[in-house]
């Protein structure tokens, strides 16, 4: 097991290097740069070429690509992401500010998704082809059909028109004011969590149906084991693995992928930062964010694989 873990961790290195090369080159293929975004896109009448050259020099954009790349890679090896080309602030600071919100939202949305998906999926499987099953299926298909940002807009409109209330517009950390914090984040967590629970519910239902037809379940029933025990001790452990994978990967996605939902609820999260960094051609910040998301995906995948072995003793790695 230990050697498996070490091998998996080492395998991440070439993957991350590939991601680094790809994002570095892709960003530079797209027309425009941060200096143009800063000075030309604003519609101002006087545009100084000298100023733009000066700014490019300050940012190192006048250097050959190989030098820019090696300089960036050198920084990465020292865990120094450098400065944002747009704000001039340390990237670590730019990310840290948004990370708390994005992490909390990802945890809350994943919790909502898990709390909905697992019981509903089990219930639908247990009551297959009854009205309960149909109701759960309609509920989950509706969740799949509705984009979470649309549901978010709907939530805001209902709160605004019916209750004449809006969530707070500025993020307050949980430890500063839990009420303000939850009043802001519970709504996007519900909107996003519901969307992701839909996938999980359907996956849970089908996995459960498959497991419930297995011989060992029939044997357990024949032995007279209580239904609750059959479900928790035998069926759930086997059926939950694919659901765990989906929810875990979605967690990684939620960290940096909630762009529109963040816009709708005016959340200062990593998704918005990502989009703005790309739109502004902030190469250093975009590169750092891509590396952060790629690393998160790899780590989550790794943790899920290890969890598989822990949950299902039949899966052992040599």
């Amino acid at each position, binding site marked *: 097991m230990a050697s498996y873990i070490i091998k998996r961790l080492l395998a991440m290195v070439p993957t991350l290097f590939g991601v680094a090369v790809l994002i570095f080159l892709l960003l530079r293929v797209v027309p425009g740069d941060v200096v143009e975004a*800063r000075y030309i896109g604003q519609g*101002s009448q*006087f545009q*100084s070429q000298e100023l733009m050259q*000066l700014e490019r020099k300050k940012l190192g954009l006048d250097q050959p690509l190989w030098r820019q790349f090696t300089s960036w890679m050198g920084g990465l090896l020292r865990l120094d992401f450098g400065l944002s080309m747009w704000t001039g602030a340390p990237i670590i600071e730019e990310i840290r500010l948004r990370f708390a919100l994005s992490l909390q939202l990802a945890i809350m949305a994943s919790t909502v998704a898990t709390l909905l998906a697992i019981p509903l999926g089990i219930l639908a499987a247990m009551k297959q082809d009854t009205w309960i099953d149909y109701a759960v299926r309609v509920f989950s298909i509706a969740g799949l059909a509705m984009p979470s940002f649309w549901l978010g807009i709907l939530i805001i409109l209902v709160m605004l028109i019916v209750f004449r209330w809006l969530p707070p*517009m500025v993020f307050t950390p949980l430890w500063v004011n839990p009420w303000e914090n939850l009043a802001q984040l519970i709504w996007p967590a519900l909107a996003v969590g519901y969307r992701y629970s839909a996938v999980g519910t359907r996956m849970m239902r089908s996995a459960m149906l498959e497991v419930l037809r297995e011989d060992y379940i029939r044997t357990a029933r024949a032995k007279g084991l209580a239904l609750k025990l059959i479900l928790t001790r035998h069926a759930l452990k086997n059926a939950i693995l694919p659901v765990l994978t989906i929810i875990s990967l979605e967690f990684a996605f939620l960290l940096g992928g909630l762009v529109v939902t963040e816009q*709708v609820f*005016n959340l200062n999260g990593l998704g918005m*930062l990502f989009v*703005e960094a790309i739109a502004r051609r902030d190469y250093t910040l975009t590169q750092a964010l891509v590396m952060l998301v790629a690393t998160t995906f790899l780590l989550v995948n790794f943790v899920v694989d290890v969890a598989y072995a822990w949950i299902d003793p039949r899966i052992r790695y040599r």
Partner: protein
Amino acid sequence: MRRVIRLATLATAASFALSAIAQTPRNGGELIFPVPSEPPSYDGHREETFGLIHPIAPFYNTLLRVDPTDISGTRVVPSVASSWTVSSDGKTYTFKLRGGVKFHDGSELTAKDVKASYDKIIFPPPGVGSTRQGQYVAVEAVEAPDATTVVFRLKYASGSLLAGLASPYNFLYKADILAKEPNWYEKNIMGTGPFVFVEHVKGSHVVGKKNPDYWDKGKPHLDSFRAIFMRDSAAQVAAVRGERAHIQFRGFTPKDRDNLKAALGDKITVQESPWDCILMVGFNHEKKPFDDKRVRRALSLALDRHEASKALSQIAIVKAVAGVQVPGTPFATPPEELNKLAGYWTDAEKSRAEARKLLREAGVPDGFSFTFSNRGIPMPYEPLGVWLIDQWRKVGLNVEQRVIEAAGYYGVIRSGDTEAFMDFQCGYIVDPDLDMYKFLSTSRNPANYGRYEDPVLDELYDKQSRTTSVEERKRLVGAFEKRLLEEEAHYLMTLQWHRIIPHSAKVKGWQVTPSHYLNNTLDTVWLSE
């Protein structure tokens, strides 16, 4: 000149007095407003975006300012300068500073600080960026003969110097700080403005609190302000509708205005103005048939601007039919004169018949196809792009629209890989020097992507810029406009943007102007409850 200034000052004072009689400002409260963009740095001398002005301008003063009560946004009045005189040859401007203006660290502002600030803008030291340096090419030197006097010596008389000195970006900085670290103000805030900086949480908000030592006694009226960064326009509208925000200073769409008014009724006040921003169509003069002025003029003649004004103003942030100046401002061509220009005629059929005739004369076949490059921004690029294509089809042209992502747009336009393209400019004050510079020959202004040389146009620009006679300048601006839009048709104007500010009726003491860069110092603003 002194008499004119005195009269202007008296008129301003009278207007303030009348306002005061009408409504006595109430002190206290926090003004909350969403800002659709965030400043990259805090240095007004370096940045171009309103995302800097809206949250940061309240911390600073400028030497002059645009009268906050002037709806045309063109009347220049004193700010830190209490008065000024102009020499008879128009080449020396002497400003007297008012006393008692203090920086937020308690030190007094003197002429040395004004000189240092303007030296940074006009003659930046090596390694320091100044984005508006080109606007002050007429200035030879800035001097501070004593603590309360600043002198601007010019190479030639300039009709636009005062407008330039009223730029809301020209924050006055402390000389001692600039001497030690010229880039200090990029990451720090310390001015003389009506509000003192409290905090900036990146991506979230900026907070300022009342400056108790502000030189303009009795101001500001607000205890504090909170600028909340909010990119999504629907979220901004929801914030005003949900009464979580009082106002958004940039502008909303006609639909947003109508929805807010319908939802909140008397709780909403709507202020509107022509907006000193315009989208225009440029032609790559190096590509055939756009090297032929008959073709360019035909494309302008194909447009029914008057009908479009009625229809598009219902759905987009555009309205007035305009030339090179915002309608209703001092140097704008009156509508009856403007309507004589080709492309501005009120008879659309006659105009289109002329367009077809010109296309035939130029040898452009019926059904000629070309690509129109547009920027990937929904409002108002999208509705205007659709309108242009529809209008051009009516004279037998077949147009394909190429929408290019916003940040990469100007890279493509500058490369010359275009035929016809949408271009854009926005100003902080309506002034011929600012608004017409864009159209000078490409060798003089590389930001003219039309790739043409027109020495006649350049000469007209220089002449109007150097005259101090208002009437003569009006004539020259008119001649420039006629050459640009009709004779050579280098560019064609779409419609002037229209600024719509629906705000909480509690917000008082704020006047909409044609520029969303103006009236953001917040010293005159107050909340009625």
